[in-house]
């Protein structure tokens, strides 16, 4: 995946003009590029990343006319990839596997095959938080510690723990729950 932005753009413009060879070369490059992008953001899950690469390549294909040749190519590419990633998190969330609210996190503590999926999704979501809130949420919501225990461990007041946990949950819900796909 060594192609530079100008090279990718040249390939894409040629592809839009109907050049199948240029397009095949572009897709080969994009597959690797997208694979790396998704694996990093999914916390190393190769199978999920492969699915997303495939979906994204198909979206790029069917919606390729939305690329404006006057604009750089890479931002367009990753805008589609980010959309697909957000869509993936939302769908996973809708099945109840990802932590969209406090309840989902509670359920995920229980046993069963589904919970191990959920556990991985929880870790992915937690990874997006600052270190301190991550540790706090893990102790409080996953290990099931009480507010008082968590407060003692983190040397905070109980009120501060509640506020910090609430903020962290809210930021997770915003990132992975309902709301806009890519409005920053």
């Amino acid at each position: 995946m060594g192609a530079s932005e100008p090279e990718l753009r040249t390939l894409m413009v040629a592809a839009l003009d109907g050049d199948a060879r240029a397009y095949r070369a572009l897709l080969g490059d994009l597959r690797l590029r997208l694979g790396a992008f998704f694996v990093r953001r999914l916390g190393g899950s190769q199978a999920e990343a492969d699915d997303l690469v495939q979906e994204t390549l198909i979206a790029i294909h069917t919606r390729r006319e939305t690329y404006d040749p006057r604009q750089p190519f890479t931002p367009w590419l990753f805008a589609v990839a980010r959309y697909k990633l957000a869509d993936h998190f939302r769908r996973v969330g809708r099945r109840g596997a990802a932590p969209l609210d406090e309840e989902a996190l509670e359920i995920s503590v229980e046993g069963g095959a589904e919970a191990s999926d959920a556990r991985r999704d929880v870790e992915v979501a937690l990874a997006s938080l600052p270190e301190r809130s991550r540790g706090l949420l893990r102790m409080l919501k996953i290990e099931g510690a009480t507010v008082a225990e968590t407060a003692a461990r983190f040397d905070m007041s109980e009120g501060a723990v509640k506020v910090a946990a609430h903020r962290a949950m809210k930021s997770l819900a915003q990132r992975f729950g309902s709301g806009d796909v890519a409005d920053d």
Partner: protein
Amino acid sequence: MTDDLLDALARDIAPRPTRRVGPRLALALGVGAFVSLVGVMLLLGPRSDFPAALGRAMFWTKLFYVLALAASALGCVERLARPDGEVRRRVGWLAAPVAAMALAALAQWILAPTAMHQTLLMGNSAAVCPWLILTAAAPIFVALAWAMRGLAPTRLRTAGAMAGLAAGAAGAVVYALHCREMGGAFVLIWYSMGVLAPAVFGWLAGPTLLRWR
């Protein structure tokens, strides 16, 4: 995943002009506006003073106000229908027609006798005007939303709001062919409310309506 998918996609690269962003949105706008025009003409009818109205400044001021709004909003929609669409620099253009309309309304207000002010602001249809514009905008919004789903918006709220604004302004253009109101203040307040209402709807419904797979 194997190379088969990539090979299959590469074989299917024939240009498909129907997918182009601009023409697709223009087609949707045309279809929606036509439905809206037929509806308004059948249900409400043209202005009762039609030929004479063409000679009045406020008829054209009103029409150009909403036409300019529709054009700026559509320019934003054209960007937002693309994954990397960015409209920060274009949004300012939306303010220009509003400022021009405000100036026209102010001039009319100052020149008119005080006894006329109530009429300039409220006219005869303030209570129904925004609702009728919202209704006239509905088919246009549906058509634009349909077109955008086939494209690739990623900022779904912003895209929905801008599609709503464009539909509202285009609906107001159609409605202006029926409405006899001549107050600049009336247009500035009640027309703008009718244009904003579908934009608010688009903001709320964007993430649902515009989602694509």
